[in-house]
């Protein structure tokens, strides 16, 4: 809590092994993100954005370098401890939503709380609260298949939110959504960030990136720029939504 940086990465490298071939995906990345920051990560395809996010989200381990999350060194932790960190501290949002199709929206949101061992009633209460907050009050018992892409991504955010994480990491969260659905997601992100959650998202859309307060650029596994968005250039999703034409709810957008 008292750490100066929420996410602190020092000279991190990642080399994938494909048989005998070594694919260097990160070639020494150093960055630090303060608690409560909202950061966008940009860069061409294959530059290592997803690799970096996976390491930040404790879904993968770096090949070299050090990573401290909230002041704690992650590299030395066991599988068990990493699972617990993913469960409590991090909410990960994927481009492809990654909901379990055989569960309802509500059960999907309950999933991290199940693994945390919360009692059923508390689980249910928190999951409902998160879904209501994301405007899915009428979709609690729907299967992901019955939801539009935007709605599915909101279920995924509710799942992250219900666990009350300190950090939300989103890898191209609006990549599969039309502009209005994407904008709604960004509005939620800005609200969550305003409440103090640290937020890092990958995008290759400059307009999406301008919703954050800081933009990192990756190229070929290295950070090539790190700049602040000037406050007057920052986009407020709420303001933008007010002027966008309304979309019909429940229609499957692609």
């Amino acid at each position, binding site marked *: 809590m008292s750490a100066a940086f929420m996410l602190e990465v020092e000279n991190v490298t990642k080399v994938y092994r494909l048989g005998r071939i070594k694919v260097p995906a990160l070639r020494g990345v150093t960055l630090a993100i303060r608690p409560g920051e909202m950061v966008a990560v940009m860069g061409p395809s294959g530059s290592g954005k997803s690799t970096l996010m996976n390491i930040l989200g404790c879904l993968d381990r770096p090949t070299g370098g050090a990573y401290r999350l909230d002041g704690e060194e992650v590299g030395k932790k066991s599988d068990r401890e990493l699972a617990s960190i*993913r469960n409590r501290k991090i909410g990960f949002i994927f481009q492809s939503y990654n909901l379990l199709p055989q569960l309802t929206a509500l059960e999907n949101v309950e*999933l991290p709380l199940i*693994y945390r061992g919360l009692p059923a009633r508390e689980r249910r209460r928190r999951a409902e609260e998160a879904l209501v907050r994301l405007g899915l009050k009428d979709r609690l018992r729907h299967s992901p298949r019955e939801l539009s892409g935007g709605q599915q991504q909101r279920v995924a955010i509710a799942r992250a939110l219900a666990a009350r994480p300190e950090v939300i990491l989103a890898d191209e969260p609006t990549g599969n959504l039309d502009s209005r659905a994407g904008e709604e997601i960004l509005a939620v992100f800005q609200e969550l960030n305003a409440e103090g959650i640290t937020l890092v998202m990958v995008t290759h859309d400059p307009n999406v990136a301008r919703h954050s307060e800081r933009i990192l650029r990756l190229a070929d596994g290295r950070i090539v720029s790190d700049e602040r968005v000037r406050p007057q250039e920052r986009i407020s999703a709420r303001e933008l939504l007010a002027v966008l034409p309304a979309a019909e709810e429940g229609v499957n957008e692609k």
Partner: protein
Amino acid sequence: MTFLLSMKLAWRSIVANKVRSFLAMLGVIIGVASVIALVSVGQGARLSIQRHLESLGSNVIEVHSQGWEVRFTPELIEDLKTRVAGVKYAMPVIGLGGNLKWRNNFIDTPAQGVTQDFLEIREFKLAGGRNLSEVDVRQRRRVLVVGAAVAKQLFRGVNPVGQEVYFNNQRFTVVGVLAAKMPDQEYGIDRTIYLPYTTAQRLMGGASRIDTINIKAAGAKEASQAALQLRRIFFKMYRRPDAAYVMSRDDMLKQVAEMNRTMTLMLGAIAGISLLVGGIGIMNIMLVSVTERTREIGIRKAVGAQNSQILGQFLIEAAIISGAGGIIGILVGSGASFLIRRFGPPTALSSFSIFVAFGFALLVGAASGVWPAAKAAALQPTDALR
């Protein structure tokens, strides 16, 4: 609480893949059902033999002739009583059967030509009337002592003692009724009629050979010694070891027990093999399931599932498949056993075989789930999500 939820999740994934899950269960179903049905047939056979032997009376030795030239005469039988130590009774037995008619009722019944000693040898008690007598035997009287089931089925409540009946169209008088030994059985030892063996010989004309002797010894020890001595005597008489088949009831019971053990072992082997095959089926399905659900595993891990929780889910799934297969197998096996009894040999369900088959099915299911489950649990989240 996590356990209940794992159950629920496992159940849902089973239901979502109904056909596949059923096919996985099929091996277990067939394994458990065949074990239960087969054991029930074996058990039924064993029980009916055992009951028959027990109803023969204790310390009884049966001697059967094995060959046309081996003839037992009344004189020989009388002689055995004095020559063989420890023998209390010895009597000839002539087995026959036929139609017994009283008024307009008739039944088919086995009959035995014996002497008055049969009551003591077979340990029967009279329920009414009198036993066969020496005079009946000497004078070849047409008198009958009937078993309890015969009394019940033929005379329908009327006291049989003193009734005139026709046995194979010959007139007889019923002089005695036996008390039931096995009241719950329609057929068997209580559904037999007894007549003087001399009368039986006359009824059968030329075929009136005495081919069986029943001997009762004073005790168990005397019975086994008497059996040895009898074998020696018949060996001397006929110069071959198999002229007479001498067997004490205890020997027979031992043999039945031995037979039963062999059968149980064989059935156990069948059970083991079929359940093993069932287990391989489950393992196959679980491996497919792990491969197919790699993404699901990745998602679960991404939101914080521990390896042990993933392991648990897959193990429970395997256990549910085998458990459900086991329960269906029990139902199918019991049903098959019932049908066999209906149309074939007697069967007896054994709770032991049900427990063993079910327990083994669960064990095999869990064991075959371990490897796929461990595989699933060991996946790296990023590898699983790719």
